[in-house]
C-alpha cells in the first residue's frame, strides 16, 4: 500500500503545472504571448517602448478593438458579421456628410443610427428568414459597400469639422482619445455580457440554441440584439477611423472583417458560439496590433508580415484546440 501511494504523490506534484496549464491555459496563454512579444520587440527595437510608439499602437488598435468587440457579440451567438467593414465605410460617408451640413452632434447620432440600422437588418435576415449568418452578412457587405460608394460618388467626403477630426490626435491625461473611446467600448461590452440578461442570453443561445429556446429565451430577439450591437460597435470604430483620416472614405475598413474575426478567435472566443470573453478579444486586438507594429519597426517586408500574422493565427487556434482537447481528456 505504502509503495503504491508514494509514486502517486510524486506524479501529482509533477503534474501540477500541466494541470494548471490545462485549467487556465486558454485564459492566460494569449496575455503571456503578448507580454513575451512586447519583451522581444523591446529588445529588438529601441523605439518600440517609447511613449510615442505606445500611443501609436493604441491609436492604430482602437478602431479594430471597437469593431472586434462588436464582432464578439455576433460570434458568441454562433454567428459571424462580415459586414462590419462595409458598415465602417457607410458610417464614415454618412457621418461625414451629416457633420459637414449639420454639425458634429448630428453626425455622431446619424453614424450610430446607420450602424444600428444595418445591424438590425442583418439580425432580421438571419433570425426571421433563417439565412446563414455567413451568407446574410456577406450579402449585406456587398449591399452596404455599394451604398457607400453610391452615396459618396466613389470619392472622399471632405470638409469634416476640425473639432471632430482633431479628436484622433487629441489626448486626455496623455492618453489618445481613440484609446479612451475603445476602452469605454470595452467597458460597455463587459457590462452587457456579464451583468445583463441580454449578455447571459447571448451566451445561452450560442452555447445551445435548442436548450435556450426550451428555457423560454426568444432566440430571434437575442440574435437581432447581437447584430445591432455589432453594428453599433462598427459605427464607433468608423468614427475613430473617420476622425483619423479627417474625411469620409467609401473604402474605409476593407480589412476589418477578417482582422476582427482573427482578433476574436485569437482572444479565445469559440467560433461555435457560447464561449469566450471580450477581455480575451482585447488581448487578441493587442496581439495583432503589437505584432504588426513590431514587424514594421523591424523593417520586415510586408509580404513576410502577412505570412507571420497568418501563421500566428493558425498557431493560436491550434493551441486553443489542444487546450480544449486536454481539458476534455481530463474530464473523460
Amino acid at each position, binding site marked *: 500500500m505504502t509503495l503504491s501511494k508514494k509514486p502517486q504523490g510524486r506524479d501529482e506534484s509533477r503534474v501540477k503545472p*500541466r494541470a494548471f*496549464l490545462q485549467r487556465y491555459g486558454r485564459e492566460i496563454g494569449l496575455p503571456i*504571448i503578448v507580454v*513575451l*512579444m512586447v*519583451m*522581444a*520587440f523591446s*529588445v*529588438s*527595437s*529601441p*523605439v518600440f517602448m*517609447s511613449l*510615442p*510608439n505606445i500611443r*501609436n499602437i493604441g*491609436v*492604430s488598435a482602437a*478602431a479594430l478593438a471597437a469593431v472586434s468587440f462588436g464582432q464578439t457579440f455576433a460570434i458568441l451567438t454562433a454567428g459571424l458579421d462580415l459586414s462590419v467593414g462595409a458598415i465602417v465605410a457607410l458610417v464614415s460617408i454618412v457621418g461625414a456628410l451629416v457633420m459637414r451640413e449639420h454639425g458634429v452632434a448630428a453626425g455622431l447620432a446619424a453614424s450610430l443610427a446607420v450602424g444600428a440600422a444595418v445591424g438590425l437588418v442583418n439580425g432580421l435576415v438571419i433570425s426571421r428568414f433563417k439565412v446563414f449568418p455567413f451568407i446574410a452578412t456577406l450579402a449585406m457587405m456587398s449591399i452596404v459597400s455599394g451604398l457607400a*460608394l453610391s452615396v*459618396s460618388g*466613389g*470619392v*472622399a467626403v*471632405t470638409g469634416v469639422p476640425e473639432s471632430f*477630426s*482633431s479628436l*484622433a*490626435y487629441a489626448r486626455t491625461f496623455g492618453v489618445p482619445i481613440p484609446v479612451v473611446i475603445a476602452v469605454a467600448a470595452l467597458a460597455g461590452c463587459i457590462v452587457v455580457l456579464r451583468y445583463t440578461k441580454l449578455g447571459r442570453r447571448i451566451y445561452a443561445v450560442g452555447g445551445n440554441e435548442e436548450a435556450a429556446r426550451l428555457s423560454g429565451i426568444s432566440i430571434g430577439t437575442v440574435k437581432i440584439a447581437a447584430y445591432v450591437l455589432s453594428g453599433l460597435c462598427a459605427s464607433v470604430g468608423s468614427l475613430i*477611423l473617420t476622425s*483619423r*483620416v*479627417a*474625411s469620409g*472614405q*467609401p*473604402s*474605409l*475598413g*476593407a*480589412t476589418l472583417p477578417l482582422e476582427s474575426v482573427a482578433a476574436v478567435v485569437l482572444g479565445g472566443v469559440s467560433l461555435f458560439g457560447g464561449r469566450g470573453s471580450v477581455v480575451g478579444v482585447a488581448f487578441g486586438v493587442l496581439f495583432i496590433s503589437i505584432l504588426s*507594429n*513590431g514587424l*514594421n*519597426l*523591424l*523593417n*520586415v*517586408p*510586408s509580404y513576410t508580415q502577412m505570412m507571420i500574422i497568418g501563421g500566428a493565427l493558425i*498557431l493560436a487556434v*491550434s*493551441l486553443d484546440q*489542444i487546450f480544449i*482537447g*486536454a481539458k476534455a*481528456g481530463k474530464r473523460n
Partner: protein
Amino acid sequence: MQSRVVHKICLAVAAAGVALMAANPAYAADKIGVSMPNIKGPWFTPVLFGISDEAKKLGYEVTIQDAGGYANVDKQVSQFANLVVQKVSAILIDPANPASFNGAVREAKGEKIPVIGAGSPIVASDVAADAAASSSHCNIGHELAKGAKILLPNGGTIAVLAGPPGAFWASDRLRCFKEDLAGSNLKIVAEQTSEQDPAIALSLANDLLQRFPDVNILYGADDTYGVGAARAAQGAQKCGKVKILFAVLGEAAEEMMRAGCADYVVAQQPVVIGRTAVRLMDAIVKGKPLPSKSVEVPLIPVTMANLNSVDKAGMQAPKGWTP
C-alpha cells in the same frame, strides 16, 4: 502525446521570440521611410526601385511600408505614423488619398521630418509637401485625350475602365480626359470602376465588349486596366479593331503592344520619379537649396512606332527586382 505537442509549440514560440530579438534593429540616423498604398505592380515596383537604388547610392537605409491596397487608407495613415515614431530622416509618400493625411503630415512636421511626394504632387490636401516628384495625373488625362484623338481622328465611342473606386489619381485622370473630350466627336458610352486586379479588369473589359461590340476605344486608367482591356480584345480577336489606350508602360503592356493589342500608352517614368524624389529629399535633409520644390517628370506617349526607340530604363525596374 498532447503534452509533447504543447511542448513543441512552446519551443517554436520561444524560438520565434529569440529570432525576433536577434533581428537587426532597424534604427539608424540615415534611415528614410517610404509609405505607399501598394508596392506591387508595374507602377509601384519601378518607383520603389528608383527610390531604393538612389537612396543606396546616397547612403540611406530605406524602410518601405505597404498598406496593401488603395482601400486601406487608414492602414497607410497608421504606417505613416509608425515612420514618424521611428524618427526617420524623411518620409517619401504616395498617399492613397491626400485628404486623409492632414493630421499625420502635421505630426511629421511637428517632429521636423520632411515629407516628400513620390509619385504624387501633394502629400496632404491642406498641408504642403516639402518637395514632390511626380507626373500630374491631370496631365496624364490630357495626354490620354490627345491619344484618343490621334487614334480616332474622325470620332467614335469610348468605354472606360476608370480605375479603383475612390482612388483620387484615377478620378483626376478621367476628369481631365473628359474635359478635353468635351465638345469633340468622341463619346464615352460606358464607365466602370473596379478593383485594381488584372483578372477583374479583364472580366470587366470582356463585359464591356459584349455590351458594346462596336465600341472604338477601351480606356484603361493604368496598365492593370489597360492590359486587361488588351487581353479582352485579344480574346475577342479584335486587336487593332478596338483601340486600346491607357497609362503606364510595364512589361505586360509592352508585350501587348508588340502583339498589336495595345495602341497608345501614356508612359510615365516611375524610376525617374523615385530617383528624383530621393534627390529632393537628400537636398532638404542636407540643407541644400532646391532648384524647384515640385518636379514634374515628363510623360512619354508610346505607340508601336516608337516602342523600340524609347529609353525604358526610366519606366521599368530591372527584371526580377522586388521591393
